[in-house]
C-alpha cells in the first residue's frame, strides 16, 4: 500500500490544467490494475499558501509517501523544497523551475515533464531551422516569462527585432502588436500561457500583421486550442508530446483517454499519465520506504512513455526529444500535427550546477 498525495489546481481559471493532470494520472493508475495505490487529491486553488498547507496535511496527517500534481512554478517552489527536505519524494507532472534543476536540485525530486526553459529553447532552435533571422520576442514579466525569453535566446541565432515584457494577466495587446508591426521583424516568438495567449493570438490574427509565429505548446494545447480557433491555424509550436507521436503507448493512451473522459487528451494529461507510469514502474521494483532503492528505481525510468524514449539526466530532469508541431483543423476540431524535430535528446541547461 502506497499513499500518493496529489496537490493540483481544480478550481478557478487554471483548473483545466490540473484536471487534465489528474485525469491522466488516474487513468494510468486504473490501467495498471493495482489497488494498492491510494491517491489523495486536493485542490490548491492556485494559491501558494494553500498548497503549502495541503502538503503539510498530506505529510503530517495522511502520511503520504510520494507527492505530485503541482501545475505552477511558484507553487512548486513553495512546496517542493520543504517536502523533499522531509524525506518525501516529489514527482513533478508539470512545473520545472530552474532553481530546482540547478543548485537547488534534490535526490528526491524528479521532474517528469520538462525543465521550464526546454520548450522555449526548442522554439529558438526551430526558428533557426525555419530560417528566421530577425525575431520579435515577448513574455509576461515574471520569472517563468523571463526564463522563457532567456531559453529562446539561448538557442536562437538570429537577431532580435524587439524584446518586450508584458504585464502578467494582460488582456489587450494592441500596443505590442503595433510595435511588432513597426519593428521590421520577420517572425514572432511569444510565451503567454493561458488566457493571455488566447487574447494575443486572436488580436494578432485580426491585426493583419501576418508574420510567422512560434511559441511553446502551452498556448496551443488541446484544451485551449478550440478557444483560439482559426487564429491559431498554421502556427508552429514546440512540445515534447503530441497526440500523433507514433508509438503504441501513445496510441493506446489517446484512445483510452478519449474513451474514458470523452475528450482528446492534452499535453498535461500526457504528463500526468507518464508521471503515474513512472511511479508504478518504480513501485514494481521497490517500496518508497526503502528510499535508496526506490530512488534508483525512479532514476531508471523503466516505463514506456507516451513520448517514446524517456530518460532522466543527472539532475532528475528529462532528456527528451522536443518536436515542432503545427496547428491544423481535423474536421471541426483544432489540433496539432508534428512537422519535425526541434531538438533531439535535449537536456536542460542547469544540470551542470546540480550537485547530488
Amino acid at each position, binding site marked *: 500500500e502506497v499513499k500518493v498525495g496529489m496537490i493540483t489546481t*481544480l478550481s478557478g481559471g487554471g483548473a483545466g490544467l490540473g484536471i487534465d493532470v489528474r485525469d491522466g494520472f488516474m487513468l494510468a493508475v486504473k490501467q495498471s490494475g493495482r489497488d494498492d495505490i491510494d491517491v489523495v487529491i486536493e485542490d490548491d486553488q492556485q494559491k*501558494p499558501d494553500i498548497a503549502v498547507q495541503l502538503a503539510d496535511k498530506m505529510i503530517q496527517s495522511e502520511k503520504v509517501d510520494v507527492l505530485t500534481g503541482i501545475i505552477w512554478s511558484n507553487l512548486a517552489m513553495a512546496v517542493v523544497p520543504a517536502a523533499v527536505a522531509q524525506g518525501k519524494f516529489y514527482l513533478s507532472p508539470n512545473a520545472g523551475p530552474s532553481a530546482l534543476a540547478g543548485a537547488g536540485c534534490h535526490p528526491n525530486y524528479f521532474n517528469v515533464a520538462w525543465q521550464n526553459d526546454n520548450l522555449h529553447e526548442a522554439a529558438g532552435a526551430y526558428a533557426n531551422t525555419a530560417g528566421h533571422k530577425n525575431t520579435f520576442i515577448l513574455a509576461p514579466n515574471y520569472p517563468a516569462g523571463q526564463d522563457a525569453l532567456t531559453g529562446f535566446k539561448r538557442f536562437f541565432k538570429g537577431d532580435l527585432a524587439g524584446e518586450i515584457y508584458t504585464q502578467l494577466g494582460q488582456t489587450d495587446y494592441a500596443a505590442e502588436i503595433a510595435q511588432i508591426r513597426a519593428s521590421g521583424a520577420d517572425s514572432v516568438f511569444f510565451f503567454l500561457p493561458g488566457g493571455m495567449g488566447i487574447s494575443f493570438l486572436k488580436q494578432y490574427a485580426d491585426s493583419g500583421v501576418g508574420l510567422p509565429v512560434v511559441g511553446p505548446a502551452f498556448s496551443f494545447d488541446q484544451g485551449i486550442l478550440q478557444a483560439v480557433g482559426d487564429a491559431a491555424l498554421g502556427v508552429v509550436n514546440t512540445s515534447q508530446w503530441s497526440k500523433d507521436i507514433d508509438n503504441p503507448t501513445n496510441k493506446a493512451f489517446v484512445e483510452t483517454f478519449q474513451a474514458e473522459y470523452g475528450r482528446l487528451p492534452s499535453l498535461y494529461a500526457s504528463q500526468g499519465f507518464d508521471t503515474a507510469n513512472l511511479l508504478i514502474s518504480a513501485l514494481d521494483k521497490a517500496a518508497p520506504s526503502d528510499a535508496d532503492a526506490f530512488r534508483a528505481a525512479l532514476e531508471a525510468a523503466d516505463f514506456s512513455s507516451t513520448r517514446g524514449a524517456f530518460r532522466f539526466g543527472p539532475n532528475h530532469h528529462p532528456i527528451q526529444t522536443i518536436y515542432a508541431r503545427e496547428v491544423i483543423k481535423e474536421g471541426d476540431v483544432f489540433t496539432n500535427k508534428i512537422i519535425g524535430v526541434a531538438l533531439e535528446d535535449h537536456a536542460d541547461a542547469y544540470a551542470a550546477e546540480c550537485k547530488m
Partner: protein
Amino acid sequence: MIGERWINLAVPLALLAVPLYALMADEPFTITLATRATILALAAVGLNIALGIGGLVSLGHAVFFGLGGYAMGILAFHAQNYSPLEIGPLTFAGTKSMPVIWLVAVIVSAMAALLIGALSLRTSGVYFIMITLAFGQMFYYFAISWSAYGGEDGLSIYVRNGFPGLNTLVPIQFFAVCFVVLCLALALNAMLRASPFGLALNAARQVPQRVETVGLNPMRLKLMAFVISGAITGLAGALFADLNRFVSPSMFSWQLSGELIILIVIGGVGRLMGPVVGACLFVALEHWLGGLTDFWHVWLGVVLLGIVLFARGGVVGLLTGKAGPHV
C-alpha cells in the same frame, strides 16, 4: 441570545481546545489549520482596529501582511545563505530568530502604514478603499518583478525560524506562539476600544466634524489607528510566512486584502471576536467544503450569502442579537 462577554471568553477557549484535542488524537494537520486560522485572525484583528473602530475600510492591508512576510523571508533568506543584507551603505546580518524578525516586521509595517495612511487619509469612503488598493497593487507588482527575492516564485525558507526556549517545528509549539500573540493583540484591541483614544476614534468614524469642534484632530486619530492596525497585520504576516516557511507576492494580492475584510464581516464588524470567529469559520469551511466537490466554491458562496442575509452584524451579531457599527 448570548452576552458578548461570554463570546469573548468562549471563542479563544474554543480555538485553544481544537489543537489540544488534535494533539491527543494525533492529527497534526488540524493543528496546522488552527494555526492558520489563528494567524489570519491576528491579521484581521489588526485590520479591525482601523476598520471596526476607525471606519477605515482598507483594501490594502495585504501590504502590511506582505511586508511582515517579506521581513521574515528576507532576513531568514540571508541567514540561510550566510550572505549579509545590504541596504545602501549599511549591512545587516540575516537572522532566524522570531523575536527579531517580529520587531522588524512591526517596525517596517508601521512605517509603511504611516506613509500610506498619511496619503490615503486625505480621501474617505470608497476613495479610501481604492487608494489603499492602489498601494497594495503597487507593492504586489513590485514584488512580482523583484527578482532578487524570487519575484513571482517567492522565497522558500527551509527551516522554520526559532523562538528562544521552544522548538517551533513542533506544530503545537508554533501554534502556542501564534495563539499567545493573538491573545495579546485581542487584549490590546479590547483595551484600545475602551480607552480615551478608542472613544475619540469611534467618534471620528461617525462624526469627524464633531471631533474637530471639541478640539481633537480626527485625521491624526485615524492615522494612529491605521499605524497600529498595520503593525499588527504586519506581525501576522511574519507569522504566516513562518507557518508556510514561504513568502511570495500573493501575500500582497488584493484578494488577500479582500479576504481579511471578509473574515471581519463574517465574524462581525467592530466586534472584538469578530475576526477570530470569521477566520475560524472561513478556514473550517474552506477545509470541509474543499473535500466535498470540485465545485465547492459555489457552496462556500452560498454559505457566505446566508451569513450576510440572515446574520446582521455577522456571526457574533447573530449570537448576541445586536447589529454592529455601521461601516
